[in-house]
């Protein structure tokens, strides 16, 4: 047969279990990309028909209707189903995925899809959960009512998958009907029909166990709910910061070892330095965050898969509403404490575009893990290690204050943005709270692998390019004998120019020089300062300590405090800028983000410096 490969698409309401079904049907053979021009994820994979013929299966975003689309996701689903989506062939077969325990609701959208007259198969998904709730369904009756094959499936237990593949093959070979010409079916009429069909398909309905209702009694309890959420978040934070350390150290050591190996194996040359100092050190600086990102995403994916995420959004909605956001923004902002890159990526679940944009713009204000090395060095060098209260150290208090200033900054900025550049109707919060489910190991593993791959590929290539560029700027033109290389380089000249700008806020030329490579990633500021002060350090710990002594001799306390204030706000991270560009489809918003964050950093560092000087700390 020499026809085009057959394309099938999964359509259905959100929470119908489409993604689990998609994973079960395609296995790990998936391709994830964006639809052209929009930040809607296109998930496609290969599924095999009973005769061994491959079919491209597309997992369309969950949607509540074809005609009244309210989000970019729903619009993509509508266009694909109608055959209007650029870069996507119209699916030969549509697979409508229905949640068995929510037929009355899901059949409303199903009717809209069926009226298109395309070859269609219905997957009656999650029949096991419906049975757990005491609901037994008659798929034959439903099939008769809908006029298309209905296959009961349990994606996570791989039940009904072969039958579904066979039904897709049969539907593909059938002749497409003409669209059913039904003039102006109104929504209430559809709902009435959905109700009748759902009732007609029920074989028996007993008193429901409703495990999820009992769990919600505890987890959404006005008094018990929030402490449970905060306890869980505490565990997540601990895990991200402590579990990741051995792995991060291991990756760090591995990259150092590779660098050392290259240094001993290759003759000394500029090319070798580029490889070790530029490529290996630069890529290593990014990959070192992989353990934290994986641990964070493990918790996020688990919370999503179990259905708890929607409850967390519910519990936090009131607080977020105070600054013009909704509960949906809570998880992306939480993720940003580890790293703004996955945080910004996870804003895709926010339906309101203004809400989403605001969340992306304030995400870098959450104190990410890359700021810690910078804070640690400066605090250790300048803040005396003494207790202000029993059990409360001054150093810890300063660190905590830096986190709090970031959070307060984010809230104030959100308030201002929602009244200016991202002005719009006060964002509402309408969200289905899905049923609780046990996550499957396979779906979790697949999700983690995909996140890791996206992170390594996108952030890695970006950092790679930037580090190489910075290395070139620091090494060319070559210094005359006896002249300092940094001073002679292009970067050195830029630093001298920059020093004029940052002197009013208490920064010296060395800081200006450190700020340039720190554009790639904040923590690079530490090693840059170390290089500039030519400390003969052998390992990070020693480097940190000796650098501290050097700093104490060369910086005033006011300068050190201004430097800390700068890093609370400064958008010194190329990966964040790059991911913002990707998620907002252009340079407008990353440009805005750069401008406002640098502006805030400059103002706050300057204010800190001058207040400190006025207090006699200069």
């Amino acid at each position, binding site marked *: 047969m020499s026809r085009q490969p057959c394309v099938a698409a999964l359509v259905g309401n959100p929470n119908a279990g489409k993604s689990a079904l998609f994973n079960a049907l395609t296995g790990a053979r998936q391709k994830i990309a964006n639809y052209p021009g929009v930040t809607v994820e296109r998930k496609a994979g290969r599924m095999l028909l009973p005769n061994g013929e491959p079919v491209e299966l597309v997992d369309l975003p969950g949607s509540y209707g074809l005609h009244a689309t309210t989000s970019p996701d729903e619009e993509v689903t509508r266009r694909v189903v109608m055959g209007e989506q650029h870069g996507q062939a119209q699916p030969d077969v549509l697979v409508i995925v229905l949640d068995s325990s929510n037929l009355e*609701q899901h059949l409303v959208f199903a009717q809209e899809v069926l009226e298109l007259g395309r070859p269609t198969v219905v997957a009656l998904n999650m029949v096991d959960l419906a049975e757990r709730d005491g609901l037994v369904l008659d798929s034959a009756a439903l099939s008769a009512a809908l006029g298309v094959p209905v296959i009961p499936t349990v994606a996570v237990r791989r039940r009904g998958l072969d039958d579904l593949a066979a039904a897709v093959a049969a539907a593909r070979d059938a002749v497409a009907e003409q669209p059913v010409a039904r003039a102006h079916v109104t929504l209430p009429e559809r709902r009435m029909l959905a109700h009748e069909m759902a009732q007609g398909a029920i074989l028996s309905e007993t008193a429901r166990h409703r495990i999820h209702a009992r769990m919600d009694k505890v987890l959404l309890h006005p008094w018990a709910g929030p402490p449970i959420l905060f306890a869980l978040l505490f565990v997540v934070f601990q895990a991200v910061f402590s579990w990741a350390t051995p792995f991060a150290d291991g990756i760090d050591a591995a990259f150092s070892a590779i660098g050392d190996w290259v240094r001993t194996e290759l003759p000394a040359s500029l090319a070798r330095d580029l490889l070790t100092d530029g490529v290996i050190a630069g890529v290593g600086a990014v990959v070192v965050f992989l353990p934290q990102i994986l641990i964070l995403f493990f918790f996020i994916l688990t919370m999503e898969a179990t259905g708890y995420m929607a409850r967390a959004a519910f519990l936090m909605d*009131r607080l977020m509403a105070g600054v013009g956001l909704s509960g949906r923004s809570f998880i992306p902002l939480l993720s940003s404490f580890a790293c703004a890159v996955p945080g910004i990526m996870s804003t895709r679940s926010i339906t309101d575009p203004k809400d989403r944009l605001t969340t992306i713009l304030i995400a870098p204000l959450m104190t990410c893990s890359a700021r810690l090395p910078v804070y640690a060095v400066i605090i250790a060098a300048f803040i005396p290690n003494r207790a202000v209260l029993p059990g409360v150290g001054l150093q810890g208090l300063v660190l905590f204050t830096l986190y709090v200033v970031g959070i307060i900054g984010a809230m104030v900025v959100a308030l201002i943005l929602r009244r200016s550049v991202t002005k719009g109707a006060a964002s509402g919060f309408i969200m289905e709270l899905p049923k609780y489910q046990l996550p499957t190991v396979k779906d979790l593993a697949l999700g983690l692998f995909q996140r890791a791959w996206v992170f390594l590929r996108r952030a890695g290539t970006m950092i790679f390019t930037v580090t190489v560029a910075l290395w070139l700027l620091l090494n060319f033109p070559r210094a005359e004998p006896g002249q300092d290389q940094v001073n002679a380089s292009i970067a050195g000249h830029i630093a001298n120019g920059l020093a004029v700008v940052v002197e009013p806020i208490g920064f010296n030329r060395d800081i200006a020089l450190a700020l340039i490579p720190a554009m790639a990633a904040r923590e690079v500021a530490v090693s840059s300062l170390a290089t500039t002060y030519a400390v003969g350090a052998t390992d990070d710990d020693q480097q940190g300590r000796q650098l501290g002594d050097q700093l104490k001799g060369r910086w005033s306390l006011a300068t050190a405090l201004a430097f800390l204030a700068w890093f609370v706000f400064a958008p010194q991270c190329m990966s964040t800028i790059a991911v913002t560009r990707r998620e907002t489809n252009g340079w407008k918003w990353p440009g805005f983000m750069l401008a406002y964050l640098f502006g805030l950093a400059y103002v706050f560092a300057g204010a800190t410096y001058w207040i400190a000087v006025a207090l006699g700390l200069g």
Partner: protein
Amino acid sequence: MTLDQLPLGISARIAAVDWDMLVPEEAQRLRALGIDEGAKVKLAYRGVFLGRDPLAIEIGRMTVALRRAHARAMTVDTVPETQAA
């Protein structure tokens, strides 16, 4: 009585919705979720912080979170609990 005033756990039918009180996209989303005139709903949970916002309502076998501002646009009549919705 509007939906936000409904006591917890009492079934009610939405008698009327003042759609003008709602943003069009949100109105559409509520309708898509089946929250419309004639729907049988039950207030299941109230938010925890100041203002007792948001609300979680049960409609059919779904639980849907919405804000009090949305619920205020909906007039409800209580119905006696005869069978499971």
